[in-house]
């Protein structure tokens, strides 16, 4: 029969039309919030989603996964008396690994001796060249540069980020990437413990012949 295929297709759209209401009503009946709640957003990104698929940004947001990457930022530890201890040692590996070469680091030197100091005097990332590939964070040996989750950074002018703009506390990092943070902290502690043990062993070794 001519028109059967069209009717078949219409049945699909018809079903999807009613699905929106059925899903909304079933959530309302069970007293759960389908909109503006984490549970609702999760449901809409799961395999069972049907009906309305829209996430009403900015009122509600998709839950970004931990690995999500946007622009990089520099991590600093909050030392005593609120001093910012920048983790970066200006080794330059991120600048070398960067595919579009959008990172450049100004090294600082001690004003008295003139020797280079292991903190960057300034650190620039050209946000309008960065390709968000994450290589800098991946290859940084000091966990000093990480990829940010913040994507609401549109501006009315072209942006080159400097050190001040890039610095964010380690607590922020722990917040956006809890799993990675704990993993790295554990690795660091293990490394320090190994170092201490080695130093102890070395001290013991030097101590023994003397005794």
């Amino acid at each position, binding site marked *: 029969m001519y028109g059967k295929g069209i009717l078949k*297709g219409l049945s699909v759209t018809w079903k999807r039309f009613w699905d929106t209401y059925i899903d909304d009503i079933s959530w309302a009946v069970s007293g759960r919030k389908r909109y503006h709640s984490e549970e609702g957003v999760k449901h809409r990104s799961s395999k069972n989603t049907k009906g309305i*698929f829209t996430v009403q940004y900015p009122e509600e947001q998709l839950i970004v996964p931990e690995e999500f990457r946007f622009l990089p930022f520099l991590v600093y530890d909050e030392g005593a008396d609120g001093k910012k201890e920048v983790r970066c040692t200006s080794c330059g590996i991120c600048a070398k690994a960067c595919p579009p070469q959008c990172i450049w680091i100004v090294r600082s030197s001690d004003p008295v001796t003139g020797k280079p100091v292991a903190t960057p005097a300034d650190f620039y990332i050209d946000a309008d060249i960065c390709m968000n590939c994450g290589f800098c964070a991946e290859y940084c040996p000091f966990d000093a540069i990480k990829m940010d989750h913040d994507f609401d950074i549109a501006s009315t002018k072209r942006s080159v980020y400097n050190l001040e703009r890039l610095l964010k506390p380690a607590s922020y990092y722990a917040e956006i990437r809890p799993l990675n943070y704990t993993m790295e902290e554990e690795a660091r502690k293990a490394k320090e413990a190994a170092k201490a043990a080695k130093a102890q062993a070395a001290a013991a070794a030097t101590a023994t012949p003397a005794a």
Partner: protein
Amino acid sequence: MATPILTQTVDLAARFPGMVTADARPGYTGFIVNKENLLEVATAVRDEFGFDLLSSLTGVDYIAENKMEVVYHAFKTTGGSGLIFKVQVERIDPIEIPSLTHIWHGLEFQEREVWDLYGIKFTDHPDMRRILMWEGFEGHPLRKDWKEAFYEEEVKPYKSRWPEGKHTFAEDKNPFHDNLNFPKDFDPEKYVVDKEEDLYASLERHTMKDEAGKMKTDSVVVNLGPHHPSTHGVLRVAVTLNGETVMGLKPVMGYLHRNHEKIGERSTFTQIIPYTDRLDYFNSMSNNFGYVTTVEKMMNIQVAERAEYIRVIMAELSRVQNHLVFIGMLLNDLGTMFTPALYAFEERELIVDIFEAVSGSRMMCNYYRFGGVVRDVSDEILQKIKDLVFDRLPAKTDEMERLLNENEVLVGRLKGTHVLSAEDAINFSVTGPVLRASGVPYDLRRADPYSIYDRFDFDVAVRHNGDMMDNYLIRFDEIRQSLRILEQALKQIPQGPINSQKPNYQIKVPAGEAYGRIESPKGELGFYIISTGKGNPYRYHVRAPSFVNLTAIEKICIGTKIQDFVALLAMLDIVMGELDR
């Protein structure tokens, strides 16, 4: 590393003594053919030895030896490893090589590309114009002695970023304070703009007179694009029309030519990986896969077992997603106004969520590394993939089929239009679903297995009519087969390390050449890489399926109606990022 099922060596040097010599450079394979005998040898390669599919052609500039080389990669559609032959010429302009377009029509665009980027003229080519850059552009950019306006250093990483950190913007070093480079004594006011007469001349324009010789009718030249809602990006097509019938057609491209190869030759091997994401931006996972396998071939390293499975899972998810979007977009172009696209993008979002969770980015995944992948897939994400593959996607594919497959209007539009025969498809080097829709069961996952595809049980989807309907339906078949592979891979995936190598941003690749290819959702995605043992490739060429598949468009189109043309572009499934590179 999978071995080709059919390792057949053809000794061209023995067959053509004096005309062909084996390429004896260390790390190189294949044969060097004398320029004068190229046509004869090429004909034999096709007719005598049966290498009917000339997949890739590219140029190499050996500036130190003062030579230009053109490399041909020929394969058999029955599968197996390929035959590489090369032609070398002195690097003195004008450089000329006989064109092989009469043997393999699929070379037309590729030869034009080599002319554009290397300045090698192919004599007897039907339409020798620039292809990616515009007529009148100064120089041939891929030559090693050609420097762009923002030229800083031969290779990355640039010293100015490290260790001194005295970065100045590239603009400030350039006399024009911009990405510009003009020949000396150039006067812009006296410049005569190219009116693209060559382009219109290459189209067949017909002027007809009636019998009395009084009334003259001229066919209409129409330019579709570069900004056109249907062209899937910035492609321009110049068409001559007689009423509504297409009389002649020429695609004009290069509107998204982002100099991928030039930048690639400057970057280190690792730095290229995120650039490959931006080739076919629907399938960054597949692009990574192709590039990484090629380099691994050169480095001769094993891939971690778990990583192999992860790679296959990601590549196949990417294929499912690509084909779903294809279906949505094709129907959109046919005038269904969004409904199928909305449905397709819903599934795409769910798949892209997985990419985001494992790699960090929805589209530009940058997930594969030499020897494995960058990070492990957690059980939670694996469960999400299983949910999709076992529960959701099969049902949604069925729903998509129910939606329009039997729709009488759609069937009327698609059935019997734009037929591409198997012989033509092979001759035009068409690969991927378009080739398989015309009845050639050529799928690299079976024909020249890479990675671990030989472990999975799946069929190569084939349809036999080669028309639009078959091209539409074969995408459903491929989704089904991909889901089959995914189901097996998800069941078999072992535990273990995800990379056999240590993370290293500066790898060295042994000197030599390699051509690696994978079955991307669009067709055969090939990478031709020459390394000199340094940290960056000497030559880096991408054989993009969209680019080569488009060669057949003229053949398919002439004599059909202009309304169907838009659908044809959708059917070829071109992506401009890959087409123009």
